């Protein structure tokens, strides 16, 4: 070290060092400008976790689930002026670059049956010219509020808010899309209260507040650090040097990231402050030491002596800090590894600059030495350490008790991740979540991914059945799945909202859904994977986790994996009937919950009993329906002019032949009505025209009649108005499934289990958060163990003694126990931000121990540990305390920001650093028993400080007494 020091004090070498640093700094600035921010929260999910793998697969398959949600509060969403603006905003969103699809109440399609002409009339649910008069507005309100797919999704049930969805286009930056959506909506609704939810807005918010915090808080943090440093040095050049070396380490780090094309992330936002705080731990001791030694020996000799005495300690402490940061590499969370790697690099740069650049500049500017003062801080630290050393047994017992209490608290620490980990209470995302929960049944979603042949009606019914089962669980406010979409389009085509009976029909309906973004969120393009979206109103993480457990249990207990499609009237008809009845009963219960029909166990039992009692099929309203059909524009046949009123006679005759007529029976009935033989050409032609529509009409009428009887038998109390009517209609459509021609059943007993299968997996952000929580816990344990082992190993090598290595690590261990114990006691969860705490504590804490032990030596070679402690505190204490205060102040500033991760890291690290410094000044005097920890070791020897009241070469008696 002395050779190196003497080399460095040569003017030419010093100039060379400064030149190299400046050139590298310039290059770093150039590259640093190209560093891009990646604010993808999903990047924090560990890829080797099973839940995470499923989530990524789903995200890839369904093109991302990052939907921007905008809630708008309004007293009257049916006011024409409001609806007009909603129409304009929705239209504009759909013409906005990067928005694949913008959806609101204004562009939802709707259809109604046309009782006169037959068929349906389709159009937007909200007419192009919203009604102005009160009666028409009331009618529109009733119509809209009767649509279950709209209420709770696009308009609040209380009619006080609307929701706009923005689906990003493929490859579009969700954050950019969110900004554009925000711009369009704000322009359209400048005065209404707006709530921005969904991943794109949350990501954007986190990015924005992190950037804002860094921009606004970094100057404050720097200022406070500057002030503390200046108070410690009382020298402008020294202060500037300390800050310049740490500043350069930040520039170099971002330069390397830019050169390597590494993106920054949310956690990386705290890296500059971390580097500033920890990096200063290298510069401060060197400068403080230099002032004293330069005063005693002159500038050049003082510089050499500084590097020889304190340099090895700084190096040892620095390398250990770097190793502690590198312990983050054992984590399986990529952004944390990136943070650990580049922060470690930054520390290494700071360490290198402290040992080269700072001495070089000192040499070139000829920094003057200064006699150290007695200082209050030094006196306090000396008093503290000597008091502890004098009362080591009681203090040791107290420390042990504290450590035990901390250890107990550690067992209470819970790893827990949820959205709230990224934003504070009362922040815009939090307000949006509360708004969505209050008005739209929740802002939390998770999904079930179903794998199977979705063109098979049996599989579509299974998807719907699964969704129905989940819909009955507590906290589930709604579900959405592709079978509902298919049922809606089937209703438009056939008049009944149900899964069609044949694969050909299902495939045909799917054809009309091609290219629909709303559908692509529910079904993959290859029609092999479906997503069931489940919306929940759970406020507490515990409620959500309990629900997840219930759903997972439900999935696990599913009766069908490998399946076969069986003829409902074939050999397994009993099983088919049972299966279909069970699904219908669940469906009716789910419909009841959806439409606000009170059902308890008694009602559900009554429904089941009714389904099992296969009563007579009634087609009460069939004649009128058939007559309406014959007079509609959908009837493509030709009725003869005679007999008079042929349509009425045909309708009457056809209505009398039962619910499931054959073509022969239809021909006979038609012939009878028209006074012609069944073999008549006109009759045969009419049979081909009316057979399929007639079957549909009769089945629908039978189901409607059956639904009314079921409602009466089960004593169901229907809501008034359109909602109640819609429930009966939905039950009727559901009952038609009892007559499905095929059913999906488990592979028959004894058959080879090689049939097609239906796979179901639970996924979504709540599942992710759970996986991430588990991962954070495991990662934390790994990184702590790894960091401690590294520290003890390095320190043991440095001190050539394992006990000394353990001694150096003891303040770190005590700090970890106290800080994590406090987290457990205070209920502060372990999450991404706090999981980096251990490495930071270890890195900084071990530095303190190294410096205190390096100065641990009783004056005049005595054996008195009290005097050794006093000497160590007097010599290294101010540097340790100064650095701890700097770190604390730097991190504490982060708590004043809005970014939750920065707040967590800031507050806890500030507390931890003070604890680490205190632990160093308390634990080491209790445990250290050797007269010296400096020779003969690679650390060299830190000479005692000479205060201004001492003679330059005298050895001070700095003990308290």
């Amino acid at each position, binding site marked *: 070290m002395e050779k190196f020091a003497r080399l460095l004090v040569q003017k030419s070498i010093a100039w060379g060092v400064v030149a190299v640093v400046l050139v590298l700094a310039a290059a770093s600035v150039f590259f640093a400008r190209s560093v891009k921010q990646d604010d993808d929260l999903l990047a924090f999910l560990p890829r080797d976790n099973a839940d995470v793998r499923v989530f990524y697969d789903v995200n890839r398959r369904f*093109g991302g689930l990052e939907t921007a949600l905008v809630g708008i509060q309004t007293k009257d969403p049916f006011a024409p002026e409001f609806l007009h603006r909603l129409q304009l905003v929705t239209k*504009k969103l*759909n*013409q*906005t*670059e*990067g*928005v*694949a699809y913008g959806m609101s109440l204004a562009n939802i*399609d*709707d*259809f109604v049956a*046309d009782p006169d*002409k*037959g*068929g*349906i*009339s*389709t*159009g*937007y649910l909200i007419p*192009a010219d919203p009604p102005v008069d009160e009666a028409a507005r009331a009618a529109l309100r009733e119509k809209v509020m009767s649509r279950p797919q709209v209420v709770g999704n696009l308009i609040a049930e209380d009619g006080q808010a609307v929701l706009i969805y923005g689906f990003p*286009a*493929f*490859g*579009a930056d969700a954050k950019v899309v969110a900004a554009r959506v925000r711009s369009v909506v704000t322009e359209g609704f400048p005065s209404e209260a707006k709530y921005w939810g969904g991943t794109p807005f949350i990501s954007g918010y986190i990015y924005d507040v992190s950037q804002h915090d860094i921009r606004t808080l970094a100057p404050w943090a720097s200022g406070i650090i500057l002030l503390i440093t200046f108070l410690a040095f009382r020298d402008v050049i020294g202060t500037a040097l300390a800050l310049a070396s740490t500043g350069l380490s930040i520039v170099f780090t971002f330069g390397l990231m830019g050169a390597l094309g590494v993106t920054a992330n949310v956690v990386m936002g705290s890296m500059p402050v971390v580097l500033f705080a920890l990096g200063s731990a290298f510069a401060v001791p060197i400068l403080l030491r230099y002032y004293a030694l330069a005063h005693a020996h002159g500038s050049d000799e003082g510089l050499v002596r500084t590097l020889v005495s304190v340099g090895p300690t700084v190096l040892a402490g620095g390398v250990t800090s770097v190793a502690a940061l590198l312990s983050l590499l054992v984590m399986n969370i990529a952004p944390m590894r990136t943070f650990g790697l580049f922060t470690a690099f930054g520390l290494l740069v700071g360490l290198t600059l402290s040992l080269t650049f700072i001495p070089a500049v000192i040499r070139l500017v000829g920094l003057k030495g200064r006699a150290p003062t007695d200082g209050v801080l030094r006196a306090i630290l000396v008093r503290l350490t000597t008091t502890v050393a004098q009362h080591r047994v009681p203090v040791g017992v107290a420390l042990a008790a504290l450590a035990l209490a901390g250890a107990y608290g550690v067992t209470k620490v819970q790893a827990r991740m949820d959205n709230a980990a990224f934003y504070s209470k009362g922040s815009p995302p939090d307000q949006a979540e509360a708004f969505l929960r209050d008005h739209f049944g929740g802002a939390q979603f998770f999904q079930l991914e179903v794998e199977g042949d979705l063109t098979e009606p049996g599989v579509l019914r299974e998807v719907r059945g699964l969704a129905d089962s989940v819909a009955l669980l507590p906290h589930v406010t709604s579900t959405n799945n592709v079978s509902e*979409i298919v049922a*809606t*389009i089937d209703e*438009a*085509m*056939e008049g009944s909202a149900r899964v*069609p009976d*044949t694969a*050909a*029909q299902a*495939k*045909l309906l*799917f*054809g*009309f*859904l*091609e*290219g*629909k973004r709303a559908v692509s969120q529910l079904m993959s*393009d290859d029609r092999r994977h479906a997503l069931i979206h489940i919306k929940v109103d759970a406020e507490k993480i515990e409620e959500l986790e309990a629900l997840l457990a219930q759903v997972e249990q439900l999935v696990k207990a599913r009766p069908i994996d490998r399946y076969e499609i069986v003829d409902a009237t074939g050999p397994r008809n009993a099983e088919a009937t049972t299966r279909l009845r069970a699904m219908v009963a669940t469906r009716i219960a789910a419909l009841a919950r959806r439409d606000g029909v009170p059902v308890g166990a008694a009602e559900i039992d009554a429904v089941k009993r009714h389904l099992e009692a296969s009563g007579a099929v009634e087609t009460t309203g069939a004649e009128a329906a058939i007559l309406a059909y014959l007079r*509609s*524009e*959908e009837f*493509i046949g030709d009725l003869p002019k005679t007999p008079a009123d042929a349509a009425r006679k045909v309708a009457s005759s056809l209505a009398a032949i039962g619910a499931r007529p054959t073509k022969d029976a239809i021909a006979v009935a038609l012939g009878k009505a028209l006074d012609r033989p069944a073999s008549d050409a006109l009759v045969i032609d009419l049979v*081909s*025209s009316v*057979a*399929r*529509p007639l079957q*549909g009409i009769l089945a629908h009428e039978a189901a409607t009649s059956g639904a009314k009887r079921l409602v009466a038998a089960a004593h169901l109390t229907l809501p008034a108005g359109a909602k109640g009517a819609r429930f009966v209609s939905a039950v009727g459509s559901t009952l038609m499934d009892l007559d499905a021609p095929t059913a999906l059943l488990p592979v028959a007993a004894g058959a080879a289990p090689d049939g097609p299968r239906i796979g179901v997996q639970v996924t979504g952000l709540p599942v992710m958060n759970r996986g991430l929580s588990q991962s954070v816990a495991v990662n934390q344990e790994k990184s702590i163990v790894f960091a401690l082992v590294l520290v003890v190993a390095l320190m043991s090598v440095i001190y050539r003694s394992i006990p000394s290595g353990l001694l150096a690590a003891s303040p770190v261990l005590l700090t970890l126990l106290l800080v994590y114990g406090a987290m457990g006691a205070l209920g502060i969860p372990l999450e991404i931000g706090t999981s980096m705490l251990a490495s930071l504590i270890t890195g900084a804490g071990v530095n303190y121990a190294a410096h205190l032990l390096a100065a641990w030596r009783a004056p005049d070679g005595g054996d008195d540990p009290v005097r050794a402690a006093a000497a160590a505190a007097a010599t290294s204490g101010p540097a340790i305390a100064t650095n701890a205060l700097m770190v604390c102040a730097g991190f504490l500033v982060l708590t004043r920001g809005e970014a939750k991760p920065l707040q967590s890291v800031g507050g806890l690290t500030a507390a931890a650093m003070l604890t680490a410094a205190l632990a160093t000044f308390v634990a080491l005097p209790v445990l250290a028993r050797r007269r010296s920890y400096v020779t003969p070791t690679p650390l060299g020897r830190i000479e005692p400080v000479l205060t201004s009241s001492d003679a330059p070469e005298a050895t001070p008696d700095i003990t308290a007494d």
Partner: protein
Amino acid sequence: MTRSFRSGLLLAASALALMTHGTSARADAPGDKVLTAMDGALNRAKTQYFEYDVINQEPGKGERKLGLQVRLKGDKRFTEFTAPADMKGTKILIMSPTQMYVFLPAFGKVRRIASSVSDQGFMGMTFSQDDLASQAYNATYEAKIGSETPTEYHLVVTPKAGQTTPYAKMEITVGKEKMLPSEIKYFNAAGTNVKTETRTGYTCEGNVCVPSELKMVDNTKGGASTKMIRTKWKVNEEMSDDLFSKRALGE
């Protein structure tokens, strides 16, 4: 979903209505005269029969193909899907803008659908009903000549006062030889070029000329596009009115 139907009906059938009836309007300004001439060139045929391969391309996804046969006569349009297999045999009859019927073979029945929505695509197509149906412009738009080359006019087309139109502005490149459009850029009210349509490979039968390929790129959807490639074309052949009846749907 319902949107699908109505779009399907209008769209698939009018899918090729690139040249039905014309609309006469007085054209005083040079731009309006060019627009009127273009309308005339677009709407000369009495009947037409097309077969089209339609290729939809969404960013990040594979191509999706449709096959269509379209018959046009006056206001009536009859379309039959020939591909994909799931849609084969599906027929759509448009008797008028509000009177449409669809026959879905798997259901064996005719469904009447009255629709009032025309600004959406169908089956992933970037052409909306409005895009395909608008073949006569001078009734609702006025034009000025933005620039001119020896072979082309570049029209800037905006809605006439009091007219409600799907787009706030269009820029149409019209070839002087046939007076037919080769490119149409569609703009929204904010002045953004939201879609760009190109019509290429014009061939003629007599004085009726139609493009062999139409392509619509949606600039707001990452470049999603629909290409309609004409594979067969017959013009002014005799077509019985029976071909445009509900009964024809079920046959």
